[in-house]
């Protein structure tokens, strides 16, 4: 069996959605440095590092196959795959003329990469599409070489990084000459720097969208992908208390007042646009039932990122809601009983995304008969209480063109003014 797809099909199916643009210049310009500021402090550019793959997964290191915007597998560094003669292994045929960042040709020994045929091919492909399984060459000097459109020119752990265009990239050289990344910048600092033209791209919160747009700033929102969740860290907290807290939260009020209606109310980890079944997880408020369940009037240690204004305001409202059900949430030192966290969707493959959520929460995930059953099992005992899906928000400088996301910078170019 051989599975090949024409380049034309791959290209058209991997089209991104059209994005509204303030200035619709159509012929991209080559050159320039894109300055980006991010909150994340990424210690290392290794694709095995979660913080790195969540931020810049495809710009430096590439995988044999990819999951496209429709959740379908597409050939990438491997152009096709076939069984060996004995039908015991899968052979992946590497793309030709792929050069590594160190200048050498990427040519897997034997002309093919093989994997045992010990599981369904769909599963093998989805595992190969995981950014953690990208092609990485560890150089003798400790640096990492990949095949992507940008190479790492400088990396100061957690502080700054410089990516430069890979001149011989097989998919065509990126338009930008370089990307300068400043890490660990608070949203407020980022937006100030955008105002002062010290950066071209700044992250923003959903609560900033209206204000920025009123000022004429080009603001881009992704599909709602980040999920805001309550996580019970203390396994001693009983199921009734956990359910009581879940039932006490007034998601509607938080969504309309604190999140400026830019978030989607949800009680599921995977967003509705990805799974299609998120509506099956009810996000209802029932204070009477919550009171009945929390009759012991528990007192829980509650932790959240106090430096993040949005998270802090949501957490404070949750504490008020909880008190209405007789649950006291207090900030106290020591191991928290419950935390409010923001998790990022890492994959268009639902099972992989659930796996990544579980791994971020240090919860073991036992796959069930379907993705839905697996998610239901994960959420079943209210150890994780999803609240909202939030879009990633980026504010762009006036000269940034063809922006789609922080994960896809090879098509971005700068208008010279």
């Amino acid at each position, binding site marked *: 069996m051989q599975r090949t797809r024409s380049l034309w099909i791959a290209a058209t199916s991997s089209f991104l959605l059209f994005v509204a643009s303030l200035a619709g210049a159509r012929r991209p310009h080559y050159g320039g440095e894109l300055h980006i500021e991010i909150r994340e402090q990424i210690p290392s550019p290794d694709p095995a590092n979660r913080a790195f793959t969540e931020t810049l997964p495809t710009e430096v290191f590439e995988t044999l196959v990819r999951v496209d915007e429709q959740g379908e597998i597409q050939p990438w560094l491997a152009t096709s795959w076939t069984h060996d003669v004995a039908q015991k292994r899968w052979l992946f045929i590497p793309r030709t003329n792929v050069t590594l960042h160190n200048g050498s040709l990427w040519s897997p020994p034997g002309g093919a990469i093989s994997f045992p045929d010990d599981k369904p091919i769909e599963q093998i492909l989805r595992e190969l599409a995981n950014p953690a*399984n990208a092609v990485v060459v560890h150089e003798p000097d400790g640096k990492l070489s990949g095949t992507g459109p940008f190479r790492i020119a400088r990396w100061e752990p957690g502080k700054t990084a410089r990516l430069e265009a890979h001149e011989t990239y097989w998919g065509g050289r990126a338009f930008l000459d370089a990307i300068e990344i400043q890490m660990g910048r608070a949203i407020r600092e980022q937006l100030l720097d955008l105002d002062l033209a010290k950066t071209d791209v700044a992250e923003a919160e959903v609560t900033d969208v209206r204000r920025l747009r009123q000022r004429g700033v080009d603001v881009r929102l992704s599909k709602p992908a980040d999920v805001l969740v309550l996580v019970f860290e203390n396994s001693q907290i009983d199921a009734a208390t956990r359910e009581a807290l879940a039932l006490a939260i007034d998601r509607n009020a938080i969504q309309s007042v604190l999140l400026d209606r830019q978030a989607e109310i949800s009680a599921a980890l995977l967003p509705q646009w990805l799974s299609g079944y998120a509506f099956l997880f009810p996000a209802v408020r029932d204070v009477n039932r919550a009171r009945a369940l929390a009759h012991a009037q528990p007192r829980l240690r509650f932790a959240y990122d106090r430096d993040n204004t949005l998270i802090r305001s949501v957490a404070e409202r949750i504490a008020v809601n909880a008190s209405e059900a007789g649950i006291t949430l207090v900030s106290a030192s020591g191991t928290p009983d419950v935390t409010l966290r923001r998790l990022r969707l890492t994959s268009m493959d639902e099972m992989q995304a659930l796996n990544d959520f579980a791994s971020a929460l240090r919860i073991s995930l036992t796959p069930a008969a379907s993705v839905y059953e697996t998610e239901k099992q994960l959420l079943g005992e209210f150890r994780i209480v999803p609240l909202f899906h939030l879009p990633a928000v980026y504010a762009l400088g006036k000269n940034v063109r063809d922006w789609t996301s922080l994960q896809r910078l090879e098509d971005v170019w700068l208008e010279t003014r």
Partner: protein
Amino acid sequence: MHAIIPPVFGACLLLALFAVSDVENAVQLLASKIASHLAPADSPRLAVRNISSFPAEDVTNVRAGLLRILRKRGRSTGAADVTVTISENVRGYLLVAEIRKKNMSAIEMVNIKPSSLPQPRLLAVSKRLVWEQPEPILDLQEAGDRMLVLSPARIARYERHAGKWSMVEVADLAVPAIRDPRGRIELEQEKINVFLPGAVCRGSWEPLKLTCELTSADFTLDGAPVHFAPARNTIEGQRRSTPRAAFGDYISVCDNKILASSASAPDATDTITIFNGAAAVSEPSDFPGPVTALWPAPDGALAVARNLTTRNYAAYALSVDCGH
């Protein structure tokens, strides 16, 4: 290379396995899944709702199909409640059944891939060679037996006699040179406006009499006022940004579709295709070199390609069949 296979998941790709060839099959499959939770003679109460972009007129068919199959089972109505939700995910439509009985509830899902829905027939782009010349053609306007051809530094008027075009007059345009020149002609009865990056020339076109001034002026493209960025090859104010995989020119056609040239290199042949959102909805129309201009025209569009063999610039009138 890093370890390729991480800890294995029994990532049961249930939805993918359930993908069926058409809506009718999906309905049948879902009905049989629902039935597996019912006693042999049970006929459930059925509610169908649509929270997706699934065509409203087809919701009735889904409901009717489910009822037809489930009611065949028996007359013991009301033993179970079934709510079927037509939902949507990145792969397509999803039929989700919530089955509730006295002491039991269950969920069943069936995926319908968009490709399995009736596909509209492909739209078509056909082309007719209008004019060819060694000098770049920025725009061309045909009006019966008269034609205006805009080049970077001049505009020429042609007339057709006995099927053959001949130049009648030419007017030089006093505008700065641009490395990647672009231009647009707008006619309004006897008046003519020629828009160039950082310049506009106004006057009459029969005879050709134009006065140019160095300023940016708006012309209309896809119903929106736009202008060339001075000293650049870009248009500012266009309503949509370029499709990612087609870095060439593009215009709106056929009710919100896009006619776009591909990301051709300067030394490669090119294509023009109609796109609907993410998908190509016409066969690509081939050109003998890179498309250097693409403008809307009364009957479709005008495309200019640089013929790689002759090195001439060739203007084509494109007819777009929108399938109406």
